[in-house]
């Protein structure tokens, strides 16, 4: 009797695993078959690298306006200047880019009205929502890696010379900054679900970016998870490990909340 129950439970588990795998495959095809994602990827990676490379080259050339805008970073030189500029640009740009894509991944189902077709399937809606987040994080990791590689190439192209250990460590921080920015974008998934479209998610992302700017100006950036990674990437000593670890609270709250919202979803509006 118990053996039969165990077998049944095992069959159910196998089926559930298969369905979760199916959800990831389907969401990956949907995501990477979309021009929105391809365009955002190109804009994000190439945009940050080109902008940072151009600003650094202009700063090295003594452009007063650019040096003025760079503030304290203007005193830096070479790779140090490039990576300082990049950290400043990446924090808002990556969060915005990641937030837009995640908002679109969740919100499009409502905007395109395909959400109704995701009910009454053997693949649960929570599996689909989890698959969206997993695919997003995988894409985010690829973008972060591509960005770090492109920055290295940009630095070499504008003649900054071979990177030393310190530069490689800064590049690694830059890579982690982009990865953490992907985690910090997870509220977009939840808000796009609650608001039933991409725009609420994008609005929430912009709200986070503005809030981070305000908190940094107020001097409490280290304790604000959205601001801490950028401050750490620019000046590692300015942020404690505890403050940096607080970044994980954002996805740890928002990802389960998103899954719960998809589980409880109804077509009632």
């Amino acid at each position, binding site marked *: 009797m118990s053996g039969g129950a165990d077998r049944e439970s095992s069959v159910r588990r196998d*089926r559930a695993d298969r369905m979760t795998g199916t959800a990831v495959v389907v969401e990956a095809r949907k995501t990477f078959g979309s021009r929105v994602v391809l365009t955002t990827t190109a804009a994000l990676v190439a945009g940050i690298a080109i902008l940072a490379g151009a600003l650094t080259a202009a700063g090295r050339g003594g452009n007063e306006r650019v040096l003025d805008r760079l503030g304290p970073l203007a005193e830096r030189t070479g790779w140090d200047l490039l990576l300082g500029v990049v950290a400043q640009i990446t924090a808002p740009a990556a969060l915005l880019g990641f937030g837009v894509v995640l908002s679109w991944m969740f919100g499009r189902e409502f905007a395109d009205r395909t959400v109704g*077709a995701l*009910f009454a399937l*053997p693949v649960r809606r929570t599996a689909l929502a989890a698959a969206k987040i997993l695919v997003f994080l995988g894409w985010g990791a690829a973008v972060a890696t591509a960005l770090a590689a492109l920055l290295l190439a940009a630095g070499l192209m504008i003649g900054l010379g071979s990177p030393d250990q310190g530069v490689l460590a800064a590049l690694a921080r830059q890579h982690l900054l982009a990865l953490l920015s992907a985690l910090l974008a997870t509220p977009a998934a939840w808000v796009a679900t609650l608001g039933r479209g991409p725009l609420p998610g994008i609005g929430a992302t912009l709200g986070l970016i503005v809030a981070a700017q305000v908190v940094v100006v107020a001097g409490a950036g280290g304790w604000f998870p959205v601001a801490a990674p950028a401050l750490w990437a620019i000046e590692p000593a300015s942020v404690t490990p505890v403050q940096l670890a607080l970044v994980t609270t954002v996805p740890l709250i928002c990802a389960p909340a998103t899954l719960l919202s998809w589980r409880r979803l*109804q077509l009632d509006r």
Partner: protein
Amino acid sequence: MVERRIVANGLSRAFSPAAGVRGIDLAVARGEIHALVGLNGAGKTTLMRLVLGMLRPDSGTCAIDGHDVRTAPTAVWARVGHLVDHALVYGDLDTRTNLVLAARLHGVPRARVGAAVRDIVDELDLGRYLGVRARALSQGNRQRAGLAAALLHRPTTIVLDEPTNGLDPAGVVALRSTLLRRAAGGAGILVSSHHLDEVARVADRITVVNHGRIVGGLDPDGTDLERAFFTLVHQDDQQAGGAA
């Protein structure tokens, strides 16, 4: 063997005093095509959403193949096909990719996906559009693709809301043949339509919905369905007016 694919008992869901459905009892038997007819806003789509678990009822229950839709296992949902509101079709993807993804989401084993897609493409004559992005399809062909996505896994419970929307006459005929064949094979089909003539051609049973309630049935073999339909609706409107 399950004799009734869908059983709804006392289903109610209110959006406002004037909108929603109240106390709906409904059954769709194995091999039966059961049509819902009613004016716009009568509650047909709401009822179908309740049947598929897209809405939670304020009261009442619904079961598919004997399983309450709130707790039905995945094996039950793998035997359900539906097109309510919008199809499982993404504009960025071509028809072939959309159908492959629909097959996977409906639980078709990977090894059988290709055959399932080929069969439904032949059945609904979609071969010319396999490489076309869904966004570029005409409304009718997009509807065909949506019907293909809903039916390619050979579901035994089928729920379709206004399935002939946008279809050309050839598409209507193809859909009619498909539904009749699926019903003959044992599927239970719940379908809504505004087209009484079309309903009469396929339905075994016709139920009239008005103001969120079932107000009667029509004989599919009757001579003047339109007159019979409006008689039922007007009687109900008058009773509702009198009660108010």
